[in-house]
């Protein structure tokens, strides 16, 4: 039978060993207790939400980042530079005419102020988001930039002609391509700020171990330069379909090629769509033939 006394002195050469911690008994008499499962008994499971996984990290930062290391600081700097360029280009390629607010307000001046406000808001949020490494502001910035370029009016590229660009359609098209690449690079870099901040914090808190970090970072750096260049070149080719297509047709029939060159449709957005269609049919066929795997196998076995 359980003994009333917890005196165990006789068992331990005169030293009394308590059979239970005093604090527990004290707690039993004092704590107001419910029957719910205590919070510390439930394991923490953090599943990223859809939005969180899109932007590479939590919207409301649950993880307290450690101060940014040099790599993250450089990326933040990159984001700032791209933001300036992006803001300028957004202003140039998206005049207020044709925007929803122009249609709603009916005034060009008011629409311009509204448009500038949106661009400034997108830039400001982007700056603050990258500086604070807070995904909420970045998400707001992305949305505002996309909103700024949503125009419902023109067929041809139209601009706020600051530098007399309207006379050169090629230059205008190039400007839009550069704008698009900058937009994607802004998405990527700001996303990278979050990803690498999380990674850096995880490394420093020993959650993850990184072997050869310089090589991993080096590959990312290379991709930041190579991918936009390739995207620009390929996109330019795709968008030049209205020039390239008549050239190919010209091999067979010069008359048809001339008609194509003079065709209004081919020079319009539908010409771009046709070119895109051709190119992506080719790309789709390559994927259907499992070319990526074939190329990969070829590269894998290159040294064997």
């Amino acid at each position, binding site marked *: *039978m359980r003994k009333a006394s917890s005196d165990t002195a006789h068992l331990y050469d005169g030293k009394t060993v308590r059979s*239970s911690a005093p604090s527990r008994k004290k707690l039993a008499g004092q704590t107001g207790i419910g029957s719910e499962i205590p919070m510390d008994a439930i394991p923490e499971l953090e599943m990223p939400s859809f939005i969180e996984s*899109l932007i590479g990290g939590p919207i409301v930062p649950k993880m307290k980042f450690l101060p940014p290391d040099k790599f993250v600081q450089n990326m933040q700097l990159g984001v700032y530079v791209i933001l300036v360029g992006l803001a300028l280009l957004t202003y140039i390629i998206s005049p207020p005419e044709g925007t929803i607010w122009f249609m709603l307000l009916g005034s060009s001046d008011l629409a311009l102020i509204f448009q500038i406000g949106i661009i400034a808001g997108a830039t400001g949020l982007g700056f603050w988001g990258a500086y604070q490494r807070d995904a909420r502001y970045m998400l707001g910035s992305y949305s505002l930039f996309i909103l700024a370029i949503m125009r419902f009016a023109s067929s041809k590229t139209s601009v706020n002609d600051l530098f007399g660009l309207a006379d050169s359609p090629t230059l205008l098209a190039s400007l839009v391509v550069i704008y698009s690449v900058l937009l994607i690079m802004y998405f990527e870099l700001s996303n*990278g700020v979050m990803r690498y901040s999380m990674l850096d914090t995880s490394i420093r808190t020993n959650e*993850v171990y990184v072997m050869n970090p310089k090589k*991993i970072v080096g590959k990312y750096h290379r991709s930041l330069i190579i991918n936009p260049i390739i995207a620009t070149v390929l996109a330019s080719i795709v968008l030049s379909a209205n020039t390239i297509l008549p050239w190919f047709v010209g091999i067979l029939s010069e008359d048809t090629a001339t008609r194509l060159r003079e065709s209004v449709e081919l020079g319009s957005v539908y010409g771009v769509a046709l070119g895109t269609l051709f190119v992506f049919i080719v790309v789709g066929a390559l994927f259907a033939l499992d070319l990526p795997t074939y190329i990969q196998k070829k590269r894998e076995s290159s040294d064997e």
Partner: protein
Amino acid sequence: MWSRKSALLGSMAVAMYLLGLTLRNSQLVTIAVVIFVFLTWAALFGGHADVASSGRRADEWTGEEGVALGSVLAMRKLSGSRIFEDGELTVTLRMQNNSGLAKILEVRDRVPEVMRIKQGSNYILMELGPRRETYIEYTVECPLRGFYSVGPVAVRMQDPFGLFHKEKELHVYNDFLVFPKMEDLKDTFVKSRVPKIFTGAVNIRQPGPGSEFYSLREYFEGDSFRAINWSAYARSGKLMVNERERDAVSDIIIIIDSRAVSETGPVSRNALVYSTRAAASLAKYFLGRRDSVGVVVYGDEVVSVDRDTGKKQLYVILTKLAGAVARGNIPLQVVVNRILPHINKGSPIIFLSNLEDDPTIVSALRDFRARDFDVTVLSPSSLEFEFDARRLDRTGYEVMKTERDVLLGELSSLGVNIMDWEPDMLLSTALAGARGF
């Protein structure tokens, strides 16, 4: 595989493209095309489609033949396959890249959830050069007994922007066993007033080879001359030989309650955890004294380890205890009825249970006592575990505690040595309390 980010970009591009065509807006179409190109390039040359991998155990690895099995190989070695609770296990993961291309891999070696990473990391981001291999070493602490498996190894490759990725699980598993930790009872018994709970080498009242004198009998052909009692021969004129009492060790039977109810309480502090630790400690102690120890674990079935002696028996018992899972609700009476015919009369029986949710406990223990078995009950109190974890309110605790005290009193009146084992009490203290010294 598309990531959510690439899916978002893709959807955005499709939306802009269609909207651009509908509104005849070249800018939107251009932006959409650039996004398409960006995604296509990443998908085509992002290096994501190449994790053709396979995994094998390290001991199956016999050289470069693994090349044929794929480009990324994982092998693992453990520092041991049997450890005790709170012990540490070092895991060495060997990653090989058998292709001619360098790869950036994200590797996560899955360890059981209850394990804690003590040193190193099981999650590694690495650049593995062409035809290179690397070793990853980490140490895990194993706080709970059981059968465990390390693995599989999850490998992921993705393009630098995280647009596309490929994941693969390399099914490399290594099993290991965590034995319940043991408390050294030796010192306790030496220091206690009674030297031993149970007398170790109990002489059973049967003639046989031994050291103690049992009786005299007439000489039969074949008896050893050394056994002849010459004094008796001188007195009686007949050849008489000494018979000796057969020395034997006592059989200790340890019964462990592993019914579902025995796991009431936190994962690391419940009756089953305490019972298995106590059983392991007692088995070690008695086997060390060259007693014969048998174990019965019951829950959804009755699992028994036949009585035996020696170190091997200790490992057999520890293995059974490591695998004890809280399941089922077999009444103690069923267990008693089954084992009673197989236990030597008078064998000490140690019963480890929280004594909950079984109306047959009193009658079952009465059956033991009626046959003169020396019964000791160590009862880890689930109430205390629950109360400590704040899963039980004070009123409920008091009511249930009173019920429990009544039950303990009833069992005590049967002549059972019983101890209400509180969570912070050492096993030796609980044993001492149960045996009344």
